[in-house]
């Protein structure tokens, strides 16, 4: 009966429900127009297209510049995930369930990449890398992107760890396992779903990153988003719709993967909330 009462407000007679679906249409419209746009036969971008073809896909795969940018982004995002995951997981486990003064200072420091304005972060990294000659290098990009991914990993892992049943770890410890052994053999295996979604977020955070990449990657060292930035500025041709569609498909595939692994629903909700 309680359930029925709660569902009362979901009906179509409620104007708030109509408003909600209109907003949902607004939210999904941009992602939805991109796919048909990429199969346009026009040379200018208009929606809906006048004729259909796959010529812009051919153009994309024939372009060395786009292919190199895509490869570079995949490489940087993979390396970033490999750096940010151990660093973030270690921090999350150290901070876990503690909110003393020092823990909070560490937390603020680790989360600061989210709160520092993107443009200032970008200029700061550009300045640092200009002194160290790290601009347009793989190492520079991976370090900067790891700092961007770190808050997501830490927050997700902390939230996951907070939900764990501590009694299993206490049991292991009381049977004589050292703290590190408990973490390796009990805590981390239990946290596998969180680890997977944190890794996905770290990967996407880097793969999609532009605020820093705008300053520290350019020319032949451009990442995919950086290349798209230039393409949008120079000439908007339908190739960019192809790149956009591929990005949407790849991202959706990655996210479906986490759904398929069976942790999707709960994790995604958590993920979203923590962001």
């Amino acid at each position, binding site marked *: 009966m*309680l359930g029925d*009462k709660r569902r009362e407000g*979901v009906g179509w007679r409620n104007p708030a*429900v109509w*408003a*909600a*679906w209109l*907003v*949902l249409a*607004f*939210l*999904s*419209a*941009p*992602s939805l127009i*991109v796919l048909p746009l990429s199969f346009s036969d026009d040379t200018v971008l208009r*929606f*809906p297209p006048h004729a259909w073809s796959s010529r812009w896909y051919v153009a994309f795969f024939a372009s060395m510049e786009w292919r190199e940018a895509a490869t570079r982004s995949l490489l940087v995002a993979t390396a970033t995930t490999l750096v940010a995951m151990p660093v973030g997981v*270690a921090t999350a486990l*150290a901070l876990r369930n503690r909110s003393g003064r020092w823990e909070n200072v*560490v937390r603020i*420091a*680790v989360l600061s*990449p989210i*709160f520092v*304005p*993107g*443009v*200032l*972060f970008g*200029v*700061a*990294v*550009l*300045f*640092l890398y200009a002194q160290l000659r790290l601009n347009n290098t793989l190492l520079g990009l991976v*370090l*900067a992107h790891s*700092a961007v991914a*770190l808050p997501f990993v830490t927050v997700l892992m902390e939230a996951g760890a907070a939900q764990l049943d501590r009694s299993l770890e206490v049991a292991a410890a009381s049977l004589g396992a050292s703290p*590190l052994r408990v973490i390796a053999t009990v805590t981390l295996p239990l946290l596998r779903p969180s680890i997977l979604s944190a890794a996905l977020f770290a990967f*996407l955070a880097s793969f*999609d990153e*532009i*605020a820093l990449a*705008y*300053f520290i990657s350019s020319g032949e060292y451009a990442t995919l*988003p950086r290349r*798209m930035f230039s393409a*949008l*500025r120079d000439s908007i041709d339908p190739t960019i*719709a192809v*790149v*956009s569609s591929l*990005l949407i498909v790849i*991202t959706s595939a990655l996210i479906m993967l986490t759904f398929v692994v069976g942790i999707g629903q709960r994790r*995604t*909700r958590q993920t*979203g*909330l923590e962001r």
Partner: protein
Amino acid sequence: MTSLTSSPHLRATRRMIQIRILACAPALTLVAFVLIAPVGWLSWLSVRDSSGFTFRNYSRMLVNSGYASSLETTLEVAALVTVLSVVLAYPVALLLARLRGWQARLVLAIVLLPLWTSLLVRTFAWLVLLQRHGLINSTLLTLGIIDAPLALVNNLTGTVIGMTHVMTPFVVLPVTAALQAMDPLLYQAAQSLGANRWRAFWGVVFPLSLSGVVSGVTLVFVMSLGFYVMPSFLGGGSLRMWSNRIQTNIEVYPDWGAASALGVVLLLVTAVVLTLSGRVMALVLVRGAADARG
């Protein structure tokens, strides 16, 4: 006796603390290296020139009225985007909090879709939709609502539309969480005591969701302040956000001090907003607790 038992225990505790410090060290080093140190260094450079201390970079902002208007535009855009995001997000959060099962998952996926779509893809899509002969203008023309195409892009309108699209999910999520945490019996109690739907909403549901609204508002406002990629496309040349000034200053001025000073101002504004919202949050929590009790 006590010392015999507590000494190994103490040693173990101390060892755990050492392990925990060691575990945080890589993260702190990374953030200190790429973010805290260079931002600190830039802040230092913003008050230095060849002859020592100077406030030249800051006084320049006061003398040149362009900076004042730019700061005003930035705050205006951030405020507009924040208000619109809350207005758009609230009904979605209400729906999401009440749905169950696959319907809830579908709505959640639609909310998260923009977050999973690259920022540049979204910028591009809005450029196409909003352009002079884009879908929105042609639809409005066909329907006879307007006689001539509206200027929807390369200005404030386009920037606000695009940024609202980016920010709305960040409000939906915390508000949904707050609504889900609410006891549905409270709403029914208000109704059974004679409040109509409208009054029950404003008297019970909305106040109890305020903590979520404040989280969303803070996040959106702060993120909007530092946004530069989307405004530089959807705002065209006509909209000068503070962040776009920083972006161009880097290219125009030979020294780092000028751009750094702008960055320091942006950072200070952000810090003030975060601090204020921390206070607001505490107030809201106290109020919420008081209301629930009395």
